[in-house]
């Protein structure tokens, strides 16, 4: 449902009917990928579905050259919640009975993660709105920040991969 809502948003907003038609296909593909991931239990399809949905949203913003989108925090939270729920479903495929109330606790944690994503994303957007300067220097800083973030992610993943 999260992902459904997410893919509908750019379709509703798109001005061009051609963009809407292509977008509908991408949206269908995203939903199909998620459905396949859940039915087949194949987790690599989950990020594919998320990327298609996120890509559709980004493409709509880029094509329409829209101003800074205030709905981006909601999109971020919806993406993260959709991912959390999808992976949770995949974990539950093994049907291992847990402690009573553990599902409720997990649902609360997912809701908390969603809310935190909303806040973090909103703060980032607010920061972007305040620092509205453009230019090569800012682009370089942005690229460096992105590269640093990616490097941090890779390092974290590598440290997890080692035997504990």
């Amino acid at each position, binding site marked *: 449902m999260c992902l459904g809502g997410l893919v509908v948003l750019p379709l509703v907003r798109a001005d061009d009917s051609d963009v809407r038609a292509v977008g509908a296909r991408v949206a269908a593909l995203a939903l199909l990928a998620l459905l396949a991931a859940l039915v087949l239990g194949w*987790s*690599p399809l*989950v*990020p594919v579905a*998320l*990327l298609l949905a*996120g*890509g559709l*949203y*980004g*493409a709509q*913003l*880029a094509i329409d050259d829209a101003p*800074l*989108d205030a709905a*981006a*925090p909601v*999109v*971020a*939270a919806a*993406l*993260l919640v959709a*991912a959390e729920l999808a*992976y*949770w479903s*995949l*974990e539950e495929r*093994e049907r*291992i*009975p*847990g*402690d009573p109330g*553990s599902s409720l*606790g997990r649902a609360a*944690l997912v809701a908390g*993660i969603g809310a*935190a*994503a909303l806040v*973090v*994303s909103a703060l*980032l*957007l607010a920061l*972007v709105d305040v620092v509205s300067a453009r230019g090569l220097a800012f*682009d370089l800083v*942005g*690229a460096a920040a*992105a590269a640093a*973030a*990616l490097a*941090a*992610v*890779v390092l*974290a*993943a590598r*440290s*997890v*991969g*080692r*035997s*504990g």
Partner: protein
Amino acid sequence: MTRRGSPRLAGYAVVAAVGLLAALALRRPELAAAAAPFALVLALGTRLARDPRVAVEVELGAERVLEGDEVEALLRLRSAAPVDRLELLLELPLGIAADGDARAVRLAAGEPREVPFALRCTRWGVFDVGAVSLRARDRFRLVVWDGHVEAARRLKAYPTPITVRRILAPLETQAFTGSEVARVKGDGIEYADIRDFRPGDRVRSINWRATARRHALVVNERHPERNTDVVLFLDSFADVRREDTSVLEQAVRAAAAIATRYLARRDRVGLVSFGGVLRWLQPGMGATQRYRLIETMLETGVEPTYTWRDVNVIPARILPPKALVVGLTPLVDLRYVHALEDLRARGFDLAVVEVDPVPLVEPGRRPLEALAYRVWLLEREVLRSRLQALGIALGRWGDGELEATLEEVRTYRRYAKLARA
């Protein structure tokens, strides 16, 4: 425990990386804002993940149970670090079943936790229970620790008792007092005959009525009650199995029932498990011998061997003279059949319970398979006739009661005696 990243870790990394790159490429900060929470979850999750170091102990509710009974396996858990979800999979050997062999729990740091599992022994045997596979997940479910614990506890499942009211009487008895009425005459309860009085006879044994008729002292003769030696001769060369039953399992059930019944009448019972591995137990009596016998039977299994074995490998003291040898066999392996013939040739009192494998064998659908099945059945008939021609009493035990099979053997032995007489 082995630490690895969950599929979520790779997925979030990919989404965060592609989102940030796309934000740069399309010059849309919204995409960076959408990707940032994924990167944040990754950073927080990997930073907060701690190796759980879970200690597991397994305790069984009982060490010995009857086949079909339930026994509780209690897993005692303790973790050095908090575990958001610890999945436990009890690896059960064949013959042990559980309604749910997997469970997930949440563990606080240092908190002891007990997780009970209800196990059921579906067949007799000796089982090592307690191998547990563990999978721990952190709070953000980004890191997974896999582990395996071998906290094996031995569980012995005894065969279900089969009711046997009458058992086979041996041709000859032993010297000790027991419940079997001996053929010889002596001091006992069972009336045997009368004879003329001889000096040394007790006055109480005089039959006064017969004395009055014959005008000479006549005494009663009686059969003494003696014990017998019984050796259970179990065929463990081959087994025929189908789904949840096998002829060896049935043979052990029957052997346990027969042994219990003989031991209850103070007879001495021994065991020879004749197969790839030779196991034996010297004849003995009492409850201890019963447990020894059953525990030896529990270890019985089919050990494949191509070497020829005959009865010479059996120690002489295991097969005492005048012992009744009760064979339990599916009559599948010729080495066992030859051993039976050999024992008969050496003058042992021999009775055979054939644990019928025919109901467990599918005839096959193709004509050639059906023909092979029919030939096999005919060969079995020939084998039976050959053994009976040697004077070996043989009864078939299939789906019916063991009691009926023993009666069949008893009847054969009765008529065989008449024929010999």
